[in-house]
């Protein structure tokens, strides 16, 4: 009996790209994530919305262990990343992350930004990494910027390079932590366009954003978080157009 139950649970995690069970995260006495469980299947685009301080970014950062968890379990592609024996660096190679403030390596050209990790980790040869970088830059519309340095790029360009840099590792999950929040309004569109493209190609994505329009158009599921809990989740239509919870309604009335 016990055996079959174990099998069942591993079956579930095999189907799911991301499986989070009873996640808790404290910063000292502050409980940022109180109890979150979530399953994300392959190709799903999950958009997290909610007021600031609701734990969205912390939740996202727990997924690739930039934050250690206080308790609970996170299973990515069948690997329990909360287990100390898991080689987290290996798992991270398959999880791309895009940050609010881009975090491009300022001392390196765009090309070197992209090829540094795959060449160092030997997932690609130097030549292959270079070629792939050019292909990706082409895709995000920055083929002419390969030799530029981050300081020579606009915010929108930086973020597109950051996305390309993450894709260079050939991840099968992409995490986006408020990717457009630090951008001037006229540059938001170009970054969202690249993300839409990715979603269309079937990338599994978890996106923290304030762009309700993006959520409506691209998300397969919208999750509204507040106070360290998931308050409500469902299709964009359900959550954004017909929210049931009072807190969701209140939040949406402020941002829409």
């Amino acid at each position: 009996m016990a055996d079959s139950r174990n099998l069942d649970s591993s079956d579930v995690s095999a189907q799911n790209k991301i499986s989070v069970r009873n996640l808790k995260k404290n910063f000292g006495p502050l409980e940022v994530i109180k109890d979150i469980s979530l399953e994300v299947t392959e190709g799903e685009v999950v958009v997290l919305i909610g007021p600031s301080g609701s734990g969205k970014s912390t939740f996202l950062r727990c997924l690739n262990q930039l934050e250690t968890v206080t308790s609970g379990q996170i299973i990515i592609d069948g690997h329990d990343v909360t287990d100390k024996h898991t080689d987290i660096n290996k798992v991270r190679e398959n999880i791309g992350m895009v940050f609010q403030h881009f975090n491009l390596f300022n001392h390196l050209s765009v090309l070197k930004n992209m090829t540094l990790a795959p060449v160092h980790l030997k997932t690609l040869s130097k030549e292959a990494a270079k070629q792939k970088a050019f292909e990706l830059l082409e895709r995000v519309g920055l083929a002419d910027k390969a030799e530029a340095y981050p300081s020579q790029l606009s915010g929108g360009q930086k973020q597109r390079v950051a996305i390309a840099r993450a894709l260079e590792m050939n991840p099968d999950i992409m995490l986006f932590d408020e990717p457009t929040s630090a951008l001037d309004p006229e540059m938001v569109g170009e970054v969202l366009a690249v993300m839409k493209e990715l979603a269309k190609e079937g990338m599994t994505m978890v996106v923290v954003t304030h762009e309700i329009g993006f959520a409506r158009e691209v998300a397969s599921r919208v999750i509204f978080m507040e106070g360290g809990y998931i308050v409500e989740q469902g299709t964009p239509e359900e959550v954004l157009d017909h929210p049931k919870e009072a807190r969701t309604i209140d939040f949406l009335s402020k941002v829409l």
Partner: protein
Amino acid sequence: MIMIIQTYGMVLVKALGQTVLLTVLSLVFAMIIGMIFGLMNVGHNRILNFIGTVYVDAIRGVPLIVLAYFIYFGVPQGIQQMGFTSFKLEPLMAGTITLSLNCGAYMAEIIRAGIQSVDRGQMEAGRSLGLSYSAGMALIVVPQAIRTMIPSIINQFIITLKDTSILSAIGFPELTNVGKTIMGNTFKNLQAWAVVAIMYMIVIITLSKVSKRIERRINRGR
């Protein structure tokens, strides 16, 4: 002054050579010490942090001349009393240890501050791509930190060069020590010390000029 240069020119140049030798040796070891303790203080291991802090505080809390006496006179006696009766430290050795320890502590602080001045997001981006902590440090954080550290490091070089003069107190034949000898032999105090001062100045001003040039070159790449 001409007379001093004529009579003691070679001696002074040789002494300057000793000063430079001591400086270079000390800087090499100080860089190594500084890198090790600087990185120890940056990490999140409490034991390493503690060791790093104790070292920096101890060195900063002791005047250089006291440290020199401690290492040249104190430590050999301690070792002799432990049974190694023939143990002796040459002034060059003692001087190098003294200056390396001293300069290393300040270097550790420069390196710690430089690394901490790099935005945390840089390391996080590296880690998110699958790089280990040490790879992130070596490939991403340290190369950026060096830019901000270089002016302070060169400044510390100059301070260390000047600090070699304190080692005249343990009889190391560097420039200041030779200055004292010349003063004793000739009684031309003003001229002797003017020559010594100018010799220090020439070396240090040259070093400053070189550092300015390096700084400019680094900033151009930004």
